[in-house]
């Protein structure tokens, strides 16, 4: 329940934040009319989405079509379980937390695939094909960069990795693993299908890609899942590279939230800065740059760990 509330609330906050950031980057106020400074706008949006008719495309596969948004959204809760938000503040204390997150994050690919296939729509299918090739490609450097950290920590336990880092910024893993952090960040943006890597939905070419046919909360669930995944990616990045809930002066859950939100804001900043990359470019960046770089980084890490 707490997780559902957390995800839902964060979804609302992030929708609002995203639109405000977009507005201010374009030097306009963003949402302004509903509530003071448009603060109730996401709630109004949610109400509108809930009120919309749920439509299944004729000759689409009804089961797969509606399974997709559910499959995209529900595994998100599993992703939050092993994350340690504060000292002793976690769902389940597990040794393979990192592995669990990485494994369940892959569900999203399946969901997008089903959404594209079930839509009986060629744009949807093309979007799904792109989603799969992109997500599969970017999962590799993501795993490799995470692996470098777990080499150093000697553990896949998120609490353990946090515990090994100090309170001050120079004691965090980002200092020893800047390349891994960069790779993780890029892959995180790509995995969550955020701009500039939002090719699966590329609304200008694909008329919204895999969710072309979704109306109302079908689309809403994908939307919410995207934001929830952003939070997970930011949280994992905060744990692995930025010292988790540890911070200067007083450790605690607030440091974790500050770090998550700083990373989320950075991702939004990316979105309103960079143009969408072409599909061949996206794969080139991954296969020609990130994977070799991540491999080299991993080798160097292993070597240093062995020697020191």
């Amino acid at each position, binding site marked *: 329940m707490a997780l559902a509330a957390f995800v839902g609330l964060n979804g609302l906050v992030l929708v609002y934040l995203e639109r405000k*950031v977009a507005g*201010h*980057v*374009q*030097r*306009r*106020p963003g949402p*302004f009319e509903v509530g003071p400074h448009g603060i109730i706008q996401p709630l109004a949006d949610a109400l509108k989405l809930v009120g919309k008719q749920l439509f299944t495309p004729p000759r689409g596969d009804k089961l797969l079509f509606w399974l997709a948004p559910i499959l995209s959204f529900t595994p998100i809760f599993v992703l939050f379980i092993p994350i340690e938000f504060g000292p002793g503040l976690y769902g389940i204390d597990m040794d393979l937390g990192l592995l669990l997150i990485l494994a369940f994050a892959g569900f999203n690919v399946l969901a997008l695939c089903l959404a594209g296939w079930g839509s009986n729509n060629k744009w949807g299918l093309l979007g799904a094909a792109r989603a799969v090739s992109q997500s599969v490609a970017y999962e590799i450097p993501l795993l490799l960069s995470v692996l470098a950290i777990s080499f150093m920590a000697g553990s896949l336990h998120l609490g353990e990795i946090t515990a090994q880092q100090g309170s001050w910024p120079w004691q965090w893993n980002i200092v020893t693993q800047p390349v891994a952090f960069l790779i993780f960040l890029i892959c995180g943006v790509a995995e969550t299908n955020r701009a500039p890597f939002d090719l699966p939905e590329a609304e200008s070419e694909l008329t919204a890609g895999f969710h072309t046919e979704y109306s109302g909360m079908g689309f809403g669930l994908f939307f919410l899942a995207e934001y929830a995944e952003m939070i997970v990616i930011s949280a994992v990045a905060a744990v692995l590279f930025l010292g988790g809930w540890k911070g200067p002066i007083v450790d605690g859950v607030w440091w974790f939230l500050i770090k998550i939100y700083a990373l989320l804001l950075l991702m939004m*900043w*990316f979105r*309103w*800065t*960079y143009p969408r990359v072409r599909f061949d470019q996206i794969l080139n960046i991954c296969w020609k*740059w990130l994977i070799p770089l991540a491999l080299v980084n991993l080798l160097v890490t292993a070597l240093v760990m062995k020697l020191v």
Partner: protein
Amino acid sequence: MKRTYQVRHYKKQGPQSVAAVVADFFSGLWSLVVGLRVTGRNFASSQVTVHYPRQDVGEEQLEGYRGHIELVPKPKDPFTPKCILCMMCARVCPSGCITVKMKKQPKEEPAEEGAKPKKAPKEVEKFHLNYNLCSLCSLCVQSCPVSSLRHSRNVYISGFRKEDFEMDLLARLHRQAEAAPKKPAPEKEAETAEAAG
């Protein structure tokens, strides 16, 4: 004569040196930072839009705005347009949206011997604009020999029926003259009385 074309031959890219690739990589990374700086600066600067129903666009921001046409009054008589009824505007209008009608003139009085017959001055009876048809090409404004037409700065024009955009410009001129301050300065006159709508 036989033409010759210069064909530019692009050098076929061979394997680049490692240094070049690395330099390219870092300059690419730096360009990303530059991009972030641009949007970050915009994020931090003030807004350029106005909250429309609460705020109006300032007069100075409407400099050069070309709304529908309006009549320019005589400098001495703000109720009478400068128009001399030459009909150039109506004739030149490609969409035929201007209708000008002259007031019926009184019959010529029999002139005295030797003197020229005195004509009564022409008066505009109706100056009608169908803004639904107007393409804002500005030909009427340009072709008016006495500069009796200009573009208004009426930004807030809206309506629910097409009749809302059929305008009696003469009546509009009268409204403006009534709304205007009593004695406007001659140079400023061209700018005044937008308030009448």
